[in-house]
């Protein structure tokens, strides 16, 4: 069970949240100029690291805000969270 510190609501249990993917993930554009391989990179290719990763989470059953979590995929430790508009938190090795 993760306990995730939502930047708006404080620490809450995992079932209140939804995972939303790695960040940063920038949609390439403009559409006419995007190659098939660049589009595939954006849609499908992921770092999927074993260790610390920055990812988006949604507090579905709380404030319903998206925010950023720095999480360790090998240990499930949560290192930091930040609001979506703030600068991306640094990953501390």
């Amino acid at each position, binding site marked *: *069970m*993760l306990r995730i510190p939502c930047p708006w609501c404080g620490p809450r249990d*995992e*079932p209140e949240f*939804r*995972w939303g993917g790695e960040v940063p993930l920038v949609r390439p554009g403009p559409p006419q100029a995007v190659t*098939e*391989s660049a*589009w*595939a*990179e954006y*849609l*499908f*290719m*992921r*770092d*999927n*690291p*074993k260790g610390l*990763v920055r*990812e988006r989470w949604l507090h579905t059953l709380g404030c319903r805000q998206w925010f950023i979590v720095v999480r360790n*995929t*090998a*240990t*499930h430790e949560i290192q930091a969270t930040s609001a979506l508009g703030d600068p991306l938190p640094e990953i501390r090795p």
Partner: protein
Amino acid sequence: MRRLWLPNYTYVYTMTHIRTEQSAAMRFSALALARNAASFHENWPQLWRSPTPQSRYDVIIVGGGGHGLATAYYLAKEHGISKVAVIERGWLGGGNTGRNTTVVRSNYFYPESAHFYDFALRLYEGLSRELGFNVMLSQRGMLTIGHSAHHLELLARWVNALQLNGVDGELLNADQVREWLPLLNNSAAARYPLRGGLLQRRGGIARHDAVAWGYARAADALGVDVIQNCEVLGFIRDGERIVGVETTQGQLRAPKIALAVAGHSSVLAAKAGFRLPVTSYALQAFVTEPVKPVLSCVALSMATGVYLSQSDKGELVVGGGLDLYPSYAQRGNLPTLQGVVAGLLELFPCFSRLRLLRQWAGIVDVVHDSTPIIDKAPVSGIYLNCGWGTGGFKAIPGGGFVFAHLLATDRPHKLAEGFTLKRFASGALIDEAAAAGISH
């Protein structure tokens, strides 16, 4: 027996020596069993050698699970390439091969998947004989349970696809399902009422460890080096090309490096300098305490995604959906486990008093279309076998067979032509909703 009457340490030493020498030749048979019973089963030979790595091979396979070991076996047997090393970070079959729910089936939807997985199942049907090792295949039937009119429509569409693809499958009505699963909640108040089902009679279970051990033993007998406790630390490059691996047991070089590492595919890809369309999740399962026979087939509920079978020991082996976020922790999280248990008890209320004995998780390599990747990597010298997601065990013989073909010939096997990496750019996805056995 001789040892019992005449304790002689020199003799024991000699036997140990002979064991290693003989490892390749020994075949299991009723006669061998009787002979070894006479000596209190103390003189069975080792199943495979523990060789010192050589510095050069024709093919190095990273990952000593079912897929890696099967690939090595078919490389040696079908293509005559036996200067092969299988290197494994831990012990053989200690990853997902030892962490699944042992279900085998081929009830897939699209022609590419159906033909491939049915080929894998046909190989399973002859595997004990092929390997001389009992993989305890039990084709007890795989029954997918529908709980609503919509489920029945999906099942009818699914069974049509099976029959068009030449895979066995039949629709059952509610009464027929009840005969197969008398303990299924059949009350008027059932949250998931029983409406019908899809039965694949050739589906069932097999002994997961035996599949890994049988392939390891057979590959070893053909000259393959199976090397455990050998972790890949990095890749050796010659210009743009990968020409070997740096391991905890030194440098090993080969013109072809094959990755069969499931949930750790992205980790090794990163070391080699490319990315994959793979996300790693924990997939949990658990067993109950053993009870007398209560379940004759593998049962899967379309509503809850829960599936279960009963092992030969009597334990109920239960699994469900993925954990809800990426993970490399081989343990799984409690909320998903609770959801699976809740689903199980809605279906079989009478199991509510059973205690869980063990729970575990494997790290599975999920891709968007639930179809594997058997292809060359974007980096020269590396070959990929990944993307099996939640269904790698049932594919082991087929995955090994087609991967060996790719490694030996540099061309995809006919059954794996669609399983490319470029499909993610071209859009030719094989969006196999039946892969997980439940409607997504």
